[in-house]
């Protein structure tokens, strides 16, 4: 009996605390009107930097874009902070990658879609242009931004969504969308050109994480990865030695590390190849799931893709 009394006592003692917390938290909420910033801009939240960049380019001065996943963050492993709730809650439009790029968060985004405009930028991409994941499943590789021509579809989706959500600035969105598509067209041509500088036999991209499937397909580069699609899946010892033998056999000059993954596994392979008398260098750091720091050239989508193309071309040609 005494035990039960203590328990009830503890509960009632905590009740005011609970109320206080609820009130405190409630007050700290919405400062400005839902979906619009204090100076009347449309509030847009994007999951990854690549998507946010497209929204900034196309929305220009009429939108205020917030990014959930900053530089160097792996979208598969993203953990939301308390502030991210507010970023999602305040936004009028939320853009995300889709195709399971954001993992479990996608389920939540689909739920938020009942209350506001939530758009997967890959929705408009023809399914036959997507690379399938495992056999006998309807899953696709989500790293679509590495095929610049395919990524244009994402830019178009962003443009259409903004026009629909904010028709008063439709003209500006259309114009800026057009300009951005042009820039992407030039970027696509640039990457293609740079890849042609590499002798055909050496056009092999060896990286730690299979994020470059679309890049390889679009620009005629053979992609050999060490790890599966997930950044968390473990790779076998055989994967490591098979890749090392492949490097030696094909006489490949360089392998690459990635910004959102530790370089350790690639360094092990370089050391392994050196022991077999084949010199491989680390060709440089590629951006895969996240862009560079804001303010640097690699902090934009176009800069990031150019950096990757330049790094690959310089190391392999």
């Amino acid at each position, binding site marked *: 009996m005494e035990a*039960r009394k203590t328990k009830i006592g503890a509960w009632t003692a905590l009740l005011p605390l609970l109320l206080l917390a609820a009130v405190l938290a409630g007050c700290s909420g919405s400062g400005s009107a839902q979906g619009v910033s204090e100076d009347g801009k449309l509030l847009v939240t994007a999951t990854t930097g690549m998507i946010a960049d497209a929204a900034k380019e196309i929305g220009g001065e009429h939108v205020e874009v917030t990014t959930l996943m900053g530089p160097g963050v792996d979208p598969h492993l993203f953990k*939301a902070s308390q502030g991210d709730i507010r970023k999602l809650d305040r936004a009028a439009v939320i853009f995300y990658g889709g195709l399971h790029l954001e993992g479990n968060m996608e389920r939540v985004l689909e739920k938020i879609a009942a209350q506001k405009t939530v758009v997967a930028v890959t929705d408009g991409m023809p399914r036959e242009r997507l690379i399938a994941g495992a056999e006998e*499943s309807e899953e696709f590789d989500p790293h679509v931004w590495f095929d610049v021509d395919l990524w244009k579809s994402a830019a178009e989706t962003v443009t259409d969504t903004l026009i629909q959500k904010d028709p008063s600035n439709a003209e500006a969105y259309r114009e800026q969308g057009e300009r951005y598509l042009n820039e992407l067209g030039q970027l696509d041509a640039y990457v293609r050109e740079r890849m042609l500088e590499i002798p055909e036999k050496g056009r092999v991209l060896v990286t730690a994480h299979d994020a470059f499937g679309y890049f390889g397909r679009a620009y005629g580069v053979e992609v050999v990865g060490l790890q*599966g699609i997930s950044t*968390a899946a473990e790779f076998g010892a055989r994967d490591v030695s098979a890749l090392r033998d492949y490097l030696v056999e094909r006489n490949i000059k360089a392998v690459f590390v990635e910004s959102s993954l530790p370089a350790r596994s690639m360094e092990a392979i370089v050391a392994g190849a050196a022991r077999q008398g084949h010199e491989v260098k680390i060709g440089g750091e590629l951006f895969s799931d996240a862009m560079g720091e804001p303010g640097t050239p690699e902090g934009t989508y176009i800069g990031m893709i150019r950096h990757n193309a330049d790094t690959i071309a310089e190391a392999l040609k």
Partner: protein
Amino acid sequence: MMDFWIILTAVLVASACSILGCFLILRRMALVGDAISHAVLPGIAIAFLMSGTRDSMWMLLGATAFGLLTVFLIQTLQTSGLQSDASIGIVFTALFAVGVLLISLNAQHIDLDLDCVLFGEIAYVPWDTWTLGGADMGPRAVWMLGITLTVILLLMGLFYKQFKICAFDPAMAAACGIPVLLFHYLLMGMVSMTAVSSFESVGAILVVGMLIIPAATAYLLTNRLGVMIGLSVAAGIVSAISGYLISYLLDASIAGCIVSVAGILFILALLLSPSHGLIAKFARRREAQAA
């Protein structure tokens, strides 16, 4: 409203876990929560291979089945004479390994890690609502955890005495004619259900932390089971609420802040407890020396 739902969810998880945690601590099985969080991997893999999707319903089903299998195996190994820490270690590493193997053989090109497909995130709770006939019934997690907590309170209320004797003195319980094994399985079954449903709503770290830390804190403060459960729940709820407020102030991970506060409460208990506390012990030693 957002904040209210998150706090309520955290309080429900904290309450359910801190009650069960007391019994787990007494039975030296505190790490069973962590074990379940790993051992459900083959369940996820099999559910994916059978259904071909990563739909959350299938994942939850696979995880529930393997959660129950895990605690069943742990209990069986322990009953057959193995130490409880060894039985937990064996079962969860073996099952986790089977899961890794299944994934690397069958689904290499699919993102099938637990963080992505099973573990939820407490920050997203308010949006993941349950609709019934078009009406918004509030967050799904609140319902799921509310039902779990009700089941726990009901079973504990009905069989408190039996659970208590089984936890302290299984031999005496058996002598009194209590089906000890049944109550062991019942307790472990509750732990498994709580763990899996909370993993799905709020993620692993919060559940594993809440199963151990508040109960351990309470353990330092009392020798009576009833009081221990009360203190454990209180510690859990205080951690949940103040942890959330701290995460707001720091713009940090909510689960991380809640578990950190629970850890701080534990350290306070470790230092200040009148019976087990380091300071009290030190003072007693000084007194003894003086005398």
